[in-house]
């Protein structure tokens, strides 16, 4: 489920790619694992250094000392730190992340498999929207450099980037929901249609497609519109700026002048030659944006009551749900490593100068 596209891409490249590339992928994976291990260890200890305690904070004023002791005992929080650490690492290795320390004490794997698809379902179309708007807008602005369209896009990128997500989301909700009454403003799907959805991948759009549940698909799309636009637009600001700068820089390259000297038309120079080259640094940025994307997702998920991963992490950090936080961060780290590897591989596919 997690990072499926990246895994598919890597698997494909691994099978079809050159020995060098295969070697490179293995090397990178080999380097990733110890990195994730170190990170997981750090998170383990940092969480325990933080003041506050999962049991106390869940019970609030209600827990008697005996009760707290009993629950701590059950959760293994009274074991020596090293025993807890060993158990944590053991769990990681078997990809069984253990149980949450708060609320229902559900298996983290269950909780993540509900939350992660929600985030993916939000983040994927948002990224696509951000990329479409960002790349097209940036390129268009670059091709109209120092003309009105350029200034408008630059203003757009600054304004949109500095807009707080919760504010933009609220405006969207008020405008397209409460005022214009076009769209729903909360949740992933209409609650009643939601009853009919079969939970296969937990990506509702995919599940609806797989089961041919068209009303559900329509509902999912309707619910996606506002959060996607909110997150996508906010993210697009950076892409507009990055693309614009890179396209402008590329347009000044010698090979563009050389192509112009061959009579290649301006449109082709911009969209055919400059854009493809400018995309190379932008692709790197996309990889780096993953963290920002997740941060943006936290806010978007909150505003639109989207039961995703970002909110989950925030909730669990404040509740000191050690196992949940450790697991989520480990999974995030793996995901970021995976995506950055995928980005590097894409990089090598786009840029023929990069070969492994």
């Amino acid at each position: 489920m997690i990072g499926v596209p990246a895994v598919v891409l890597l698997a494909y490249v691994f099978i079809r790619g050159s020995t060098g590339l295969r070697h490179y992928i293995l090397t990178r994976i080999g380097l990733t694992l110890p990195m994730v291990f170190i990170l997981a260890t750090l998170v383990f200890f940092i969480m325990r250094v933080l003041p506050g305690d999962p049991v106390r904070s869940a019970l609030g004023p209600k827990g008697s000392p005996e009760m707290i002791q009993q629950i701590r005992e059950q959760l293994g929080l009274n074991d020596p730190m090293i025993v807890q650490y060993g158990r944590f690492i053991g769990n990681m290795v078997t990809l069984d992340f253990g149980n949450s320390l708060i609320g229902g004490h559900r298996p983290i794997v269950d909780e993540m498999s509900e939350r992660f698809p929600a985030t993916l379902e939000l983040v994927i179309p948002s990224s696509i929207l951000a990329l479409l708007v960002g790349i097209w807008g940036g390129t268009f602005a670059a091709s109209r450099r120092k003309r009105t369209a350029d200034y408008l896009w630059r203003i757009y990128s600054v304004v949109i980037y500095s807009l707080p997500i919760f504010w933009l989301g609220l405006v969207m909700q008020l405008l397209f929901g409460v005022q214009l009454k076009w769209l729903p403003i909360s949740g992933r799907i209409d609650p009643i249609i939601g009853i009919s959805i079969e939970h296969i991948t937990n990506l509702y759009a995919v599940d609806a497609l797989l089961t041919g549940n068209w009303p559900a698909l329509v509902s999912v799309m309707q619910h996606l519109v506002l959060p996607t636009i909110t997150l996508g637009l906010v993210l697009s600001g950076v892409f507009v700026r990055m693309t614009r700068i890179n396209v402008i820089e590329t347009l000044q390259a010698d090979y563009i002048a050389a192509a112009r000297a061959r009579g290649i038309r301006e449109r082709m120079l911009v969209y055919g030659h400059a854009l493809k080259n400018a995309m190379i640094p932008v692709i790197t940025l996309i990889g780096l944006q993953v963290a920002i994307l997740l941060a943006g997702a936290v806010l978007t998920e909150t505003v639109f009551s989207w039961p995703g991963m970002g909110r989950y992490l925030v909730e669990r950090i404040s509740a000191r749900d050690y196992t949940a936080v450790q697991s989520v961060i480990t999974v995030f780290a793996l995901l970021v490593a995976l995506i950055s590897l995928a980005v590097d591989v894409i990089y090598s596919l786009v840029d023929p100068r990069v070969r492994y």
Partner: protein
Amino acid sequence: MAEPKPITNGVAVPAADSDDMVRVETLRKHFPVQSGFLASLVNRGHIPAVKAVDGVSFTIRKGEVFGLAGESGSGKSTVGRLILGLLEPTEGRVVFDGTDLGSLAPEAMRKMRSRMQVIFQDPLASLNPRMTIGEAISHPVRIHITRQPEEGRRVVNEILNKVGLAPAEQFYDKYPHQISGGQRQRVVIARALVTAPDLVVADEPIAMADVSVRALLLDLMMRLKEELNLTYLFITHDLATAKYVCDRIAIMYLGKMCEVGPLADVYEYSCHPYTRALLEAVPVPDPRHRRKEPMPAGEIPSAINPPPGCHFHPRCPIARENCSVDEPDLRELRPGHFVACHYAEDLLK
């Protein structure tokens, strides 16, 4: 070590001599193509490497201008950096005025550095754009000469005047972008010479300068050599310019030395087909003497997998069968004139 002593790979190691400023002994520098901790673990034993310098020996005598010429990729600049101690040799050693640089502790090496200076090709790249000319030159002065500001300023002004940036006061507070390219290269020369070094490695020092300025810069360098009693290692791809400054010259091809000797000998009686081609290729500024001879086929191969035997054999007009097998030694064909070619005698005729 009084006698020339052949070593395994067939490169003669010159005898030690107190007149030697620099002695380079079977120097090698291989740059691994892949790097990284894990990659080196995985590839242990057979890491592909660029053999930038692959067994080079020569001496630079005190007070001479020793030219090092070759095309890009021949390894000439790498030799310069190895001599300066900017790179660690993979093999072999560099002896500077009797001291093996490899044996020096970092502090001793730092001291030794003040005795050798470098002038690079691009003056704009070698000057900090946010540092005035006076500051740029004061820097080595403070490290190696004096910490007193007044004294330091006097020393800087003196060298500025010496390199023709007069009146010095007028240039002291200027930034690199405020002066012309030729003047910038003079600043670089001044900075190199202010510590009164023994050896100056000039790596294509005039390649970026305009034609009308080149002669002035060369003249300046030669004048300062006499005044300050310098030794030059003059690295260049321009054999025409080398002719005007070098006492001896070495020609490199793919990390190896083809030919070395007194400049006049090498130019007049070049005994290596590559040297010949190189000399022939230099365009002559005279339309009455246009070149007729064809150039060697192909281009310089990769230094990762150089051809076996004589590296030049695939392009050589006189190559015979054994050239692709036997690597020619550098041998003394005429007094002081060494050539690495099995059939050099044929060219002597």
